[in-house]
């Protein structure tokens, strides 16, 4: 190449050097692609054109700083500069080449995506809650906007009044005390109620108002009723209610009951001495009727009135006596308490009340101190009722002794129980006695006898008691009698219970002792949660109209029934029959596990207690029959009925002559007999005294659920969800309404807008 050029040079002398150089440069640069020339500074500028950014060519033309500094090296004067430049060049780094465009964009896109993902993530919780919500109402947040018009607090301006001279003076003497009130409402106003709270408040207020209104209306209605009978019934009912309460109180808190009794007595006494009932008694009324015609009765009436007048005067006089008595009987705790209180001291309870209370108290103390004693006395007092019990107890004890030692325990508890319950009865008796006493006292009063004497002879005999009761029966009912009757009833009940406990066989006693649950069963009556719903995600059964699939299935089924049965039998028969040798008696008897039935087994079985007896009865009744043999026979028949018979498909005359005198070929006939297996395995084959009807379930089976539906994890759960009824006829209205709540509720004609972002930000709807 060079030779050629030389040759050219030599041959052509007139070639311009400049041009020649250019050409050479061009040729040399042919394979280097650099159309843009390397920049060179013409004049200083701050902006550098992007077009001048060129790949730096590592040729000799570029000047490096260190080359420049080389020239300065030997001069001491510039040593500093050299150092500086060196340090700078060491520190600086050239920037990395920017990423390729697709890569850069990808990074940007991923960043953007992450950002938007975060934005969407905020909805996660809300969406999850909406998905699992038992009910959604659309349009969402469509609670009607409550517009709360702020009512100006109706503060009436304190009217200005011209003050009189006196007023001014008084004010000067007693300067007005400035009162500061902390208004709680205002403090609350700092945090205004949310919409839901407001609504709740409103609802509550409305409810209250409605309730009030209802009550008012009822009261008004009742007030209008003029019927005396109605009012009488009402009064009686009230009294009954009170009595009931009192009874309950007596059981739970005798002290309190005592107090209450006190109050009741006081009320009664007040009513009595109000003299409103002067002429209202049965006797008085009878007399009044007769008074028109009968002189004597008139007289008697007048006398009676006079007596009453006298009595009232006398009671005022005897007050002082009662005071003395009160001091005497100061051992009463209630009295003591009253002494501490000066206000109460002024009011004195009526005498008979105090008497009664003292009597009751005594009885109570007695009872508590020696229950055993009372027990005995009680037995003494009621010889007619108790002997039988006593005998029975004795019997029980005998039995007890015979039984094993571990069975003694429950029995002892039983006796304890009896011991415990007796005192109660006696205490009740005590109350009765007290009342009887009071009756007597009243009578004493009528006879002008000092009541203190009667209170002294507290010790009572059974004779006395019986007579008083009989006397009471004829009289009209009043509070005391009611108490008495109530007590009687209580007594009776207790006695009955006692008897029951004693009569029960011991085994039952043991049971009751072991689990008190049997006596007092508690039921969980809460509404079962039904948050689990069956999710059926299956294809629909899609068929064209002409193709009625079900009928075909049925037809096929009826046709193939025999065949399939046969096949199954044959297949079963072919199986190696292992279980034949199993002896059922060798197996451990497993306790039968009960299936959950449709009806919860709530009934407390008192009949079970009689089970044993019944069995005995049955055994007795069928003593003569041999049940076992009968059963065997029955089972054999059943098995025989179920075993498939051979099918004879012979057609006489088919392929051979038939008729009288012609014996059909046995060997030929055998070919047309379809033989059934002799031994068909049965489920009850080894079960002994049991017949299993294998066909029984055939009808119900297609109606039962064969697979556990999706979200349920155990059969028990699913059964539980199915078992509880939801209908109006089976559950109360409230529960029914709860059960039938639809999962999505939409409003007719209302546009449902997409969910709003304000739900997330929590901006209140105003």
């Amino acid at each position, binding site marked *: 190449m060079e030779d050629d050029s030389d040759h050219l040079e030599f041959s052509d002398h007139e070639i311009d050097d400049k041009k020649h150089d250019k050409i050479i440069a061009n040729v040399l640069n042919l394979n280097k692609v650099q159309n843009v020339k390397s920049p060179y500074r013409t004049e200083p500028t701050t902006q550098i054109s992007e077009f001048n950014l060129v790949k730096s060519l590592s040729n000799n033309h570029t000047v490096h700083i260190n080359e420049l500094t080389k020239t300065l090296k030997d001069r001491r004067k510039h040593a500093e500069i050299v150092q500086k430049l060196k340090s700078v060049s060491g520190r600086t780094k050239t920037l990395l080449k920017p990423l390729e465009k697709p890569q850069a*964009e*990808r990074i*940007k*896109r*991923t960043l*953007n*995506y992450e*950002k*938007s993902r975060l934005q*969407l993530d905020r*909805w996660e919780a809300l*969406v999850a809650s*909406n998905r699992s919500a038992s009910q*959604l109402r659309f349009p*969402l947040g469509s609670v009607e906007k409550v517009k709360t018009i702020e009512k100006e607090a109706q503060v009436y301006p304190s009217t200005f009044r011209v003050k009189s001279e006196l007023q001014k003076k008084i004010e000067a003497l007693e300067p007005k005390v400035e009162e500061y009130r902390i208004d709680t409402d205002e403090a609350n106003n700092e945090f205004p109620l949310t919409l839901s709270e407001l609504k709740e408040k409103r609802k509550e207020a409305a409810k209250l108002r409605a309730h009030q209104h209802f009550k008012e209306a009822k009261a008004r209605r009742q007030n209008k009723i003029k019927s005396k009978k109605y009012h009488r019934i009402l009064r009686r009912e009230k009294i009954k209610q009170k009595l009931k309460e009192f009874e309950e109180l007596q059981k739970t808190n005798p002290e309190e009951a005592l107090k209450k009794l006190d109050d009741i007595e006081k009320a009664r006494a007040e009513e009595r001495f109000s003299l409103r009932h002067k002429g209202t008694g049965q006797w008085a009324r009878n007399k009044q009727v007769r008074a028109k015609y009968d002189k004597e009765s008139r007289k008697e009436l007048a006398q009676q009135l006079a007596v009453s007048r006298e009595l009232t005067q006398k009671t005022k006089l005897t007050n002082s006596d009662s005071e003395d008595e009160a001091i005497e009987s100061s051992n009463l705790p209630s009295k003591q308490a009253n002494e501490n209180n000066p206000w109460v001291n002024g009011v004195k309870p009526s005498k008979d009340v105090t008497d009664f209370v003292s009597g009751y108290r005594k009885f109570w103390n007695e009872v508590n101190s020696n229950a055993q004693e009372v027990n005995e006395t009680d037995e003494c007092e009621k010889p007619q009722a108790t002997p039988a019990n006593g005998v029975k107890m004795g019997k029980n004890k005998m039995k007890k002794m015979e039984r094993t030692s571990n069975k003694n325990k429950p029995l002892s508890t039983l006796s304890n129980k009896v011991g415990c319950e007796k005192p109660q009865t006696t205490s009740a008796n005590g109350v009765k006695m007290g009342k009887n006493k009071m009756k007597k006292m009243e009578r004493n009063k009528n006879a002008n006898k000092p009541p203190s004497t009667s209170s002294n002879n507290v010790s009572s005999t059974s004779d006395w008691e019986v007579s008083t009761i009989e006397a009471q029966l004829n009289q009209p009912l009043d509070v005391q009698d009611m108490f008495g009757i109530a007590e009687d009833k209580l007594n009776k009940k207790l006695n009955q219970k006692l008897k029951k406990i004693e009569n029960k066989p011991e085994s039952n006693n043991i049971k009751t002792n072991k689990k008190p649950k049997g006596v007092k069963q508690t039921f969980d009556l809460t509404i079962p949660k039904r948050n689990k*719903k*069956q*999710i*059926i*995600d*299956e*294809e*629909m*059964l*899609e*068929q*064209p*109209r*002409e193709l009625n699939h079900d009928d075909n299935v049925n037809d096929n089924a009826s046709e193939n029934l025999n065949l399939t049965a046969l096949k199954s039998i044959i297949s079963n028969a072919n199986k190696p029959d292992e279980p034949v040798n199993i002896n059922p008696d060798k197996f451990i008897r497993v306790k039968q596990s009960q299936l959950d039935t*449709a*009806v*919860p087994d*709530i009934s407390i079985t008192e009949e079970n207690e009689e089970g044993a007896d019944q069995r005995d009865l049955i055994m007795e009744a069928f003593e003569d029959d041999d049940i076992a043999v009968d059963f065997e026979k029955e089972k054999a028949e059943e098995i025989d009925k179920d075993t498939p018979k051979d099918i004879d498909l012979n057609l006489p005359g088919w392929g051979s002559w038939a008729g009288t005198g012609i014996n059909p070929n046995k060997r030929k006939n055998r070919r047309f007999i379809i033989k059934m297996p002799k031994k068909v395995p049965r489920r009850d084959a080894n079960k002994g005294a049991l017949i299993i009807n294998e066909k029984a379930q055939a009808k119900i089976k*297609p*109606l039962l*659920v064969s*697979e556990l*539906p999706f979200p349920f994890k155990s059969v028990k759960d699913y059964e539980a969800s*199915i*078992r509880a*009824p*939801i*209908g*109006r*006829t*089976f*559950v*109360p209205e409230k529960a029914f309404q709860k*059960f*039938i709540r*639809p999962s999505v509720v*939409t*409003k*007719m004609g209302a*546009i*449902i*807008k*997409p*969910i709003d*972002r304000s739900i997330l930000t929590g901006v209140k709807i105003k």
Partner: protein
Amino acid sequence: MKVKVISRNPDEHLRETKLHIHKVQRNYDPDLHPFEAAREYVKALNAVKLDKVFAKPFLGSLDGHRDGVSTMAKHPSRISLLCSGAFDGEVRVWDLPQRTCTREFVAHDGIVRGIVYTITGDRFITIGDDKSIKTWSADEPAFGEDEEPVNTILSKTVLSGISHHYTDNTFATSGELCQLWDETRNEPLRTIEWGIDTLHDVAFNPVEGNILAACASDRSIILYDTREKLPLRKVIMKLKTNKLCWNPMEPFVFTTANEDYNLYTFDSRNLKKPVNVHMDHVGAVTYVDYSPTGREFVSGSYDKTVRIFEAEKGHSREIYHTKRMQRLTCVLWSLDSKYVLSGSDEMNIRIWKAKASEKLGPLKPREKAALRYSEALKEKYASHPQVKRIARHRHVPKHVYNAQGELRTIKERSKRKEANRRAHSKPGEVPFVPERERHVLKEER
């Protein structure tokens, strides 16, 4: 002697005032109701049967278009209004309760590709094959006036889909590019592109308004953010996606109607695989629209049926078809979630009930309670075979039935083949791929 008399105390059966409810004496002791379960079962069975008796979903058809219905649009605030466009460029506005056409005009040369109402509902925007975006007033022109668009924009590119923002005055069009427009401007605000494939559908997220999704002809679904210069992400499916719809109640969920007969529900935060695959169609699914409650969606297909799916389930709960209904081009769920509208190839728009046996109109409280009770019973006994069978039984056209059979054999075949391959190769070599992962090719960043 005491004589016992049957006493009828009026307090026990008469109410105190007229305002009270009637007294009903009931004993809820379960011992007295030994057959409660059985009775409820029979009630449930009867309810299911009655459901079938009353299942008459077809309410009516709107006829008038002279070519297949290509697109429809719901009015944002009026349930009774519907706007539809046809393949011949005609646009009609319908009054649904009267089932009459209130307005008709030719809007475009060629197919009307999309119609949207503006947020206020006083205008609607149509796009067509003539590359123009026309804005029309929702009010009818006065007597004697011609139908004139309020505004016409000539786009530089072909347009195929349009979607309006739910709260702003912006809308997006798809075509060769995804463009964002302002109602007041004639130039697009922004153009977002990723690759050069055409987009045939675009949809604004109704809740998070800055998020946008589009379906491209390269079988991909692309997510955009209107605030960003670049798109967000792309997911490529095995077959083309025809239509996309966001769940209005779950802002990150969208469902796509795919060419492979299935619908896919995606969580836009995790595009690697769909959350759910909704099967049952036997033809390409052309359209999908969510119920405004977000619990269900309706899909129209090339197999001439409309199906209603529950959003969380893989199979449809309802199939609608009539003898004359041809291929579906668009289906809409009305904004009160009570009706479904379908537009099809054979020029008709049909109105259906969203719940086939629902009683329309106001219900009396007792009626309502009874219906709710039967609904609850049906739910309770849903998995009992008889109830299930009756509830899920549907008549379908023969071609659908046959296609189902065909598809079933195809599926079985491929399954068998896979099983065979698995059996005859090294363990682990032929992995089990769940159905949900089968249809997504890849997620592109």
